[in-house]
């Protein structure tokens, strides 16, 4: 699903440049539940931005769903994001003046789905994250965990290939963290590829595979207990 070969990325800082990613190789298959671990400055957010087509890489190859990503213009990137990717952010990034169901329906608007069908589908996904009764509430009337569940429903609504979650539990307490992780696990169990970025060990352990990043290079890439169990199941 996601294949990265020899990926480099650096940012210019004044006359110098900051080399953030120093030759990453990573292959994530369809249906995997992967977490990227690393302290701040390790390059994990940069990696997510590149995977999420929000940023461009300098050197290397990136294949998304078998398609080589290069020289994307903004329009193509927008279409691909809409088609293949669902985003979940640390700070939820809901649009404050739209109700929960309107927020979930927004990606469908850009996909060109009609209003009625859009709201119907959005409501289905809200019910899936158990927020049906809150459909008409504005984001500021929801708790942090509820907001993140709305965001997850929004990420899912276009039926993307990959869910990209950037510190999805960063702003949540431990109880809601668990419920959000359970939700992501459930999505993964239905066959969706889920790609989580986190610096919390407990969160990473709930995924199937942990990739550790340090100073722009992968220092380890191993399966967790649940990952091993799944692997055995399929072998």
């Amino acid at each position, binding site marked *: 699903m996601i294949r990265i070969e020899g990926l480099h990325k650096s940012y210019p800082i004044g006359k110098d440049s900051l080399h953030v990613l120093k030759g990453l190789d990573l292959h994530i298959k369809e249906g995997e539940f992967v977490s990227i671990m690393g302290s701040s400055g390790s390059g994990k957010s940069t990696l997510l931005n590149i995977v999420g087509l929000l940023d461009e890489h300098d050197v290397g190859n990136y294949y998304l769903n078998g398609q080589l990503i290069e020289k994307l213009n*903004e329009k193509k990137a927008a279409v691909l994001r809409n088609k293949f990717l669902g985003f979940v952010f640390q700070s939820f990034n809901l*649009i404050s003046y739209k109700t929960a169901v309107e927020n979930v329906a927004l990606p469908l608007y850009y996909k060109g789905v009609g209003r009625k069908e859009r709201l119907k589908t959005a409501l289905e996904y809200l019910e899936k994250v158990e927020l049906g009764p809150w459909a008409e509430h504005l984001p500021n009337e929801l708790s942090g965990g509820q907001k993140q569940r709305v965001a997850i429903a929004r990420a899912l609504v276009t039926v993307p290939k990959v869910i990209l979650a950037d510190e999805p539990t960063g702003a949540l307490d431990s109880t809601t963290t668990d419920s959000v992780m359970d939700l992501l696990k459930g999505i993964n169990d239905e066959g969706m590829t889920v790609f989580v970025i986190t610096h919390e060990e407990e969160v990473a352990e709930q995924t199937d595979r942990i990739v550790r990043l340090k100073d722009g290079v992968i220092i380890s890439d191993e399966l967790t207990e649940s990952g091993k169990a799944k692997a055995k199941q399929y072998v």
Partner: protein
Amino acid sequence: MFKFIFDSDTWQEIYGGIRKNKTRTIITIIGVLWGIFLLVVLLGAARGMENNFKKAFGDFATNSLVVWTNRTDKPFKGFQKGRRIQLKTRDVEVLKEEFKGRLKYIVPRCQTSSLIINGFKSGDFQVSGDYPVLDKVQKKNLIYGRFLNKNDINNKAKVVVIEEEIYKQLFEKNEYPINQYLIINNVNYKLVGVYKSGAIDFDGDTAYIPFTTFQQVYNRGNSIDWMMITADEGVDIEQFELDIQLTLKNLHKVDPEDNKAFGGINLAVQIGKFTGFLTGMQFLTWFVGIATLIAGVFAIGNILLITVKERTKEIGIRRALGATPREIRQQVILESVFLTTIAGMLGIVFGGLVLYIIDSAFGSGPDPTLLNPTVNIPIVLIAFTILIVLGTSIGLIPAYMATMIKPIEALREE
């Protein structure tokens, strides 16, 4: 693009954006509203003045001039300076002959003041000896009866046409005056007409009797007090005046360089000055109106620019969710156009209302300040189109800024 404009979802998005920012929306709208409001009201007021002016001069043949005489200022051909010049009926005949083709009407005039008596009522009024052609140069709006005619002149008839004010003073209210007799200077005259003088009138409240009658009754021989001359259409009126004066100077043996002997008013020149003033005012109106409009539109651009900055994050989210730069741009432009359009319509409506109020307050009565202050629909439409074009163009700047926002920068955590 058209699908985009007529898509209800598009408007849903714009409504959402506007509803979120009520205060800035209202302030923005007021800016543009004020601009177009001013334009409409100013244009209407200018139009009202113009209408008023046109009505005042409406009864006049505007390419007319008036000629009278003074004393000479220069000795000429043996005559001392300071000689009194007297116009004669012969002058009229000569001018008629000499200026054939350029001269349309010529009205020789004699005037005096007399006591006019009707039974027990009487008053001092101006009495004027005139030809029927006066009615062509300076239209007499008759309330009763008729104006002087050819037969009156030929028969030296003792008939009189009086102004409404004289009628009011000499007759009972609603009394039918025609065929009644008035005594002017001890002579009986049959009343044949009552007229109402316009806002601008050389004669004021005058009783008109036939020119020939006047000459006889007042012993004027063939002397004339002054005359009114109307030029034909398309004649250079200033040159015409000079030529007429030159001819008269020649007839009366006055030095051609003598500028005092003959006096005159060139109505066309006076009106031209005023028309120029009106045109200038109209230009000023447009200038002020459009400038205010532009200021209002810039306010919209400015506020949208701020909004785009405020909504950087939202735009980033939309981009991450799959909005193309084009879709973002269209939304911002449409928001600008929508705001200017609403503001423009409100401004036109309010402007129209104010004009209506002005019309009710100052537009009626016997002597209105502004007559029928209106704005042409085409002019309003032009202003409206300008507004929409400006709204679109100014929307391009914030729209461009919006597409410059990279989603990654917009979404960067604080």
